């Protein structure tokens, strides 16, 4: 197999000989042509050994010419684009293509781990379970890493994928899966009716097997007919042709997944073009014309380079103009041997013998063999020999004679399996068909039909007729009139088969599943050990579980198991396929949604200013909230947050609270709904006032807190926490639409309408007096704590002002329509600076609410009742509300429940951590002694040390007690003093100032 020897045929093939392409494999440079696959180009250059197998490191060549390939898996491309386990048989050749063989060391021809083959007794089926059981500790540290190194395939890229991927949805009346003769005729019949048609095919050229066979249709060559069909289809506005696209899964309601390899056939995708595109195709009708996959026959060393499926041999000769060998033995159990010897002979390739498993060779084959001078033998190949490639075949004739025939190519055909995967993805059970010795589609999902070879009709005449009929029927079923179309005509052919699966008696390994290295002996071992159900066989041996889904293996394995158990194949069972039909890159599923674009971001009104200032943002749900605004000279976030808190407490600060949920409630029954949603009474709330409110879940736990402002007789405006905005709105809609549809009340989300800023600190009124238009009086007497008003600011801008405080300071929230949000923020920042104030972010806000003992997300964590967080006395006893009944359950009213209190470290220099568990001072640190946990902790600039909020068993009765705050995760154990949760201004003098 010397390099440079050209196996390219002088003529023929659908390749463009005027466009040579250079490529490299394992560092050697070769040349191929446009239209080649990597496999055909390697064969043309005489490269037959291309891979090492998964477990035994057996030398492997090229078995097939399609996506079923189990052997010729390579690492394609280099660096960040390196892509392991790429099938050389589907990789389209491009100039500069760079591929490496995988799973070998130091080289493909000399692979040290091929000794695994000698150790094969321990690598047999179930070896994972048997060999490395003891001692258990060795499994993770020794055995598994060892096996992983020895067995495996390619290496994934180490760097982030530089290419882009995208996802597209397509709707159609008729989806045609597969562009062979049946698919092309089906698509044409449907297209002519005006129906919207999508035709997808794996290959870069439409035509399927027609590109690989020497056939004539309507006086045209198969290839000419395909291109005329393709041209006709491409001209229809209502047809979308998707070459290089694999339909990989059938899903509910006529939805199909497909992956289009948009740029896999070029070195680097053109600017703006994705590497791959994931299609979600929603089809009213689907026609599966996915063709069929040829089966190997199981015999000794049947995985050696040079053993190739007969159909693939014809593909390489006819489609790619390549001789896959010099001297061939054809081995078949069916009439395909006939076309194979004819094509080999026509290409000038020596045919040493035609070995037919049938006891009598059909007349037409015998005649052809005689005419071509091919020796026809009734018998089997027992083994092939040759270390890195076939050198000779050992044949046992039906009469018991043995002979050895020199050859470098064995073309094998065990019959064809219809590609029925799409019909089984939604649980369809295939049916066994004795006439073709294969499974055919059983009950089909709604809207699906099958035509051509996929339906078990292997003759071209039948494919053309069935495709045409299926296309017209699908179009008619979706409401389009399909005119009758003449079925294209072609010559007759023979497709008889006599089932034959396994040549027994070889002393060499006879492979069933090539990709997972499962042999006929493994199947027998599994059967002996009791794994006789096909599902057990699969899991015990890993048969059919490789990336090729066992497309060349499953039926052979079933047949071998059936023989061992003395049952028929349908009695033995079947394995059904799951998506994806072929591997799909995760990048294609992610599409646009990776990295920063993993999910959309919501930007608050102060976002641009924050970015300009170098402010730090924090993700809160989808919102990007300003967290803090570092200034030059500040050492860390704590410095910044301290400065922001101190500024608010001493002067004034402004904070973007636009992300809080805002819900407008209007209608005569507004208050009735509000009363049922909040646990505290709201009826007494006057127009122009706001009130804090707590909503419970049905089960009595706190769901959310916020404020209710009354803007009119029947007009309320509710705020929620940022995190729960959508949940609360949904909850309110459920109450309105479903629980009490009789209430006349309407809700509207207004979160995004208003840019809303907290203005907090002793100077906050001074700041706002320059913002709010002077006709509005905001002095304490006229606009006291919890006042709410609609007014104008900055010279007539519609605004709302609320006197609310989360920080504990004199504070307001001012809202303007979002279009003015950026400008008002900048104005507030400037005016605040003039007063010695600053902007503060969610971190400082969090510190101040802990200092003030206000609960937030860490306390409203879905496991706390109102009493747990010190709000029990707010609950109304005069009305019913969601959560009242279940909140009265015994466990929820237990006086022993951990309840909110504050904590100070006994050693004031110590840092407190949320998550630490409370344990009595002298008790052992065990779960049984657990008395609650710290929910929030912060460094308090006002107090000059760390403080915490937490839930402690009977907490409010234990003020002054010292307990342990034990944090085994961070290995901390501090003594803390139990104190009131309100650390500053417990009388509330500041916020009423």
């Amino acid at each position, binding site marked *: 197999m010397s390099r440079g020897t050209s196996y390219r045929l002088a003529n023929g093939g659908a390749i463009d000989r005027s466009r040579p392409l250079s490529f490299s494999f394992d560092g050697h440079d070769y040349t191929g042509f446009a239209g080649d696959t990597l496999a055909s180009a390697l064969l043309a250059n005489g490269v037959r050994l291309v891979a090492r197998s998964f477990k035994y490191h057996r030398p492997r060549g090229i078995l097939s010419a399609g996506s079923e390939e189990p052997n010729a898996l390579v690492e394609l491309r280099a660096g960040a684009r390196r892509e392991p386990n790429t099938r050389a048989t589907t990789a389209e050749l491009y100039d500069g293509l760079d591929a490496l063989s995988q799973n070998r060391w130091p080289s493909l021809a000399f692979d040290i781990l091929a000794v695994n083959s000698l150790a094969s007794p321990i690598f047999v089926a179930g070896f994972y379970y048997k060999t490395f059981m003891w001692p258990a500790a060795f499994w993770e540290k020794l055995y598994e890493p060892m096996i992983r190194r020895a067995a495996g395939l390619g290496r994934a890229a180490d760097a982030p994928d530089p290419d882009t991927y995208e996802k597209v*949805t*397509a709707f159609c009346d008729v989806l045609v899966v597969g562009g062979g003769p049946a698919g092309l005729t089906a698509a044409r019949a449907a297209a002519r009716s005006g129906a919207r048609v999508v035709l997808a095919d794996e290959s870069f050229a439409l035509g399927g097997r027609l590109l690989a066979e020497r056939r004539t249709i309507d006086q045209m060559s198969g290839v000419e007919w395909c291109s005329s069909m393709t041209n006709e289809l491409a001209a229809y506005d209502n047809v979308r042709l998707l070459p290089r696209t694999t339909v990989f899964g059938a899903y509910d309601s006529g939805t199909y997944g497909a992956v289009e390899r948009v740029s896999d056939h070029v070195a680097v995708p053109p*600017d703006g073009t994705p590497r791959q595109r994931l299609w979600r195709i929603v089809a009213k009708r689907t026609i599966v014309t996915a063709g069929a996959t040829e089966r190997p026959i199981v015999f000794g060393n049947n995985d050696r380079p040079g053993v190739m499926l007969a159909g693939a041999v014809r593909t390489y000769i006819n489609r790619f103009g390549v001789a896959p060998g010099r001297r061939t033995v054809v081995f078949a159990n069916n009439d395909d041997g006939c076309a194979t010897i004819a094509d080999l002979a026509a290409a000038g390739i020596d045919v040493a013998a035609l070995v037919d498993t049938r006891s009598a060779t059909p007349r037409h084959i015998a005649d052809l063999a005689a005419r071509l001078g091919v020796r026809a033998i009734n018998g089997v190949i027992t083994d092939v020999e040759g270390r890195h490639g076939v050198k000779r075949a050992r044949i046992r004739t039906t009469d018991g004679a043995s002979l050895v025939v020199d050859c470098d190519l064995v073309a094998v055909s065990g019959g064809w399996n219809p590609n029925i995967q799409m019909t089984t993805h939604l649980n369809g059970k295939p049916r066994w068909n004795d006439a073709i010795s294969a499974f055919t589609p059983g009950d089909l999902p709604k809207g699906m039909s099958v035509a051509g070879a996929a339906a078990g009709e292997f003759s071209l005449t039948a494919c053309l007729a069935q495709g045409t009929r299926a296309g017209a029927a699908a179009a008619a079923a979706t409401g389009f009139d399909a005119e009758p179309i003449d079925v294209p005509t072609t010559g007759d052919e023979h497709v008889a088969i006599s089932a034959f699966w396994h040549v027994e008696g070889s002393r060499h390994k006879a492979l069933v599943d090539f990709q997972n290295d499962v042999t006929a002996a493994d199947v027998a071992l599994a059967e002996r050990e009791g794994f006789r159900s096909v599902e057990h066989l699969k899991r015990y041996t890993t048969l059919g579980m490789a990336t090729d889904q066992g497309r060349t293996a499953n039926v052979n394995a079933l047949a071998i198991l059936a023989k061992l158990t003395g049952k028929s194949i349908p009695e033995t069972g079947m394995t059904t396929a799951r998506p994806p039909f072929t591997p799909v890159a995760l990048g294609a599923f992610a599409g646009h949604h990776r990295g920063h674009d993993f999910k959309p971001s*919501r930007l608050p009104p102060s976002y641009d200013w924050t970015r300009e200032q170098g402010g730090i943002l924090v993700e809160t749900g989808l919102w990007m909230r300003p967290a803090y605004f570092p200034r030059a000279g500040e050492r860390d976030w704590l410095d910044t947050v301290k400065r922001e808190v101190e500024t608010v407490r001493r002067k004034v600060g402004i904070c973007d609270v636009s992300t809080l949920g805002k819900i407008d409630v209007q*209608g*005569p029954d507004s208050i009735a709904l509000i009363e049922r949603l909040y646990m505290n009474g709201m009826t007494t709330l006057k127009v122009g006032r706001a009130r804090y409110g707590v909503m419970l879940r049905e089960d009595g736990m706190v769901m959310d807190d916020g404020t209710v402002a009354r803007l009119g007789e029947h007009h309320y405006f509710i705020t929620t926490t940022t995190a729960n905005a959508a949940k609360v709105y949904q909850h309110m809609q459920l109450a309105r639409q479903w629980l009490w549809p*009789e209430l006349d009340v309407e809700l*509207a989300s207004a979160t995004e309408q208003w840019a809303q800023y907290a203005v907090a600190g002793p100077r906050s009124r001074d700041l706002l007096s320059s913002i709010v238009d002077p006709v509005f009086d905001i002095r304490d007497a006229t606009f006291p704590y919890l006042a709410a008003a609609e007014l104008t600011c900055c*010279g007539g801008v519609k605004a709302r002002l609320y006197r609310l405080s989360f920080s504990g300071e004199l504070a307001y929230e001012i809202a303007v329509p979002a279009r003015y949000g950026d400008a008002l923020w900048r104005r507030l920042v400037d005016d605040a600076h003039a007063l010695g104030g600053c902007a503060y972010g969610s971190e400082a806000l969090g510190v101040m609410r802990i200092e003030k003992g206000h609960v937030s997300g860490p306390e409203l964590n879905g496991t706390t009742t109102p009493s747990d967080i010190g709000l029990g006395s707010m609950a109304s006893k005069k009305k019913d509300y969601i959560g009242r009944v279940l909140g009265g359950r015994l466990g929820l009213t237990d006086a022993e429940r951990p309840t909110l209190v504050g904590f100070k470290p006994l050693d004031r220099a110590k840092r407190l951590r949320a998550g630490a568990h409370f344990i009595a001072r002298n008790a052992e640190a065990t779960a049984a002694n657990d008395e609650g946990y710290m929910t929030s902790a912060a460094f308090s600039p006002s107090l000059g040390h760390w403080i915490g909020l937490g839930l402690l068993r009977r907490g409010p009765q234990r003020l002054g007690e010292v307990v342990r705050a034990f944090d085994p995760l961070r290995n901390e154990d501090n003594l803390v003093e139990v104190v009131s949760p309100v650390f500053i201004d417990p009388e509330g003098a500041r916020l009423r100032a």
Partner: protein
Amino acid sequence: MPEAMLIETTPFARNKPIAVPGLVVAYRDGVTVASIAAYREKAVALSDLIEATYGVALPAPGRRVSSNAITLQWSGPGQWLAIAERGQRGGAVRDLEAELKPIVAGLAAVVDQSDARGIVAISGTRALNVLAKGVPIDLHERAFATGDVANTHASHIAITIARLDDTPTFELTMYRSYATSFTDWLRSATAEFVHTQPR
């Protein structure tokens, strides 16, 4: 009182224009928008009153209608979005919430949404190809005719989409804070078309 000492910022202000052959992306700024939700058993009276005022009745579910004065777009059961240019009538600034509230008092809740939405019109021979990369519903004229409206999503962003004409032109309405993420997606969805002319 003089209008606004504050400068307006439009929802898509931070996003560079998208220029792609076969596609026109037009941000619809300067509109006034209000949500209208009919009170119990008031939908018919409400529709009659709207029709008497603006010459168009409230559209059926999944539909949108326009007159010179107003566009009314269905947005949910018993709910519509009213849309108009802010500076339409004789140069005076229109505020649909303020305009509609007295008209429909007692019949419907009206809430200003002028600033809550980002609205973008996507038009041209490539509009369908681009939208198919994010919008999971069938926008073909046979399935989604001119005047049709749907609540769906674009690239995980909730939108309301309407077909305005058979150019085709689609108008997408989303929450304002998503405008930048939407544009990021739209830019990636149009990237492959930047350098090529439509067929």
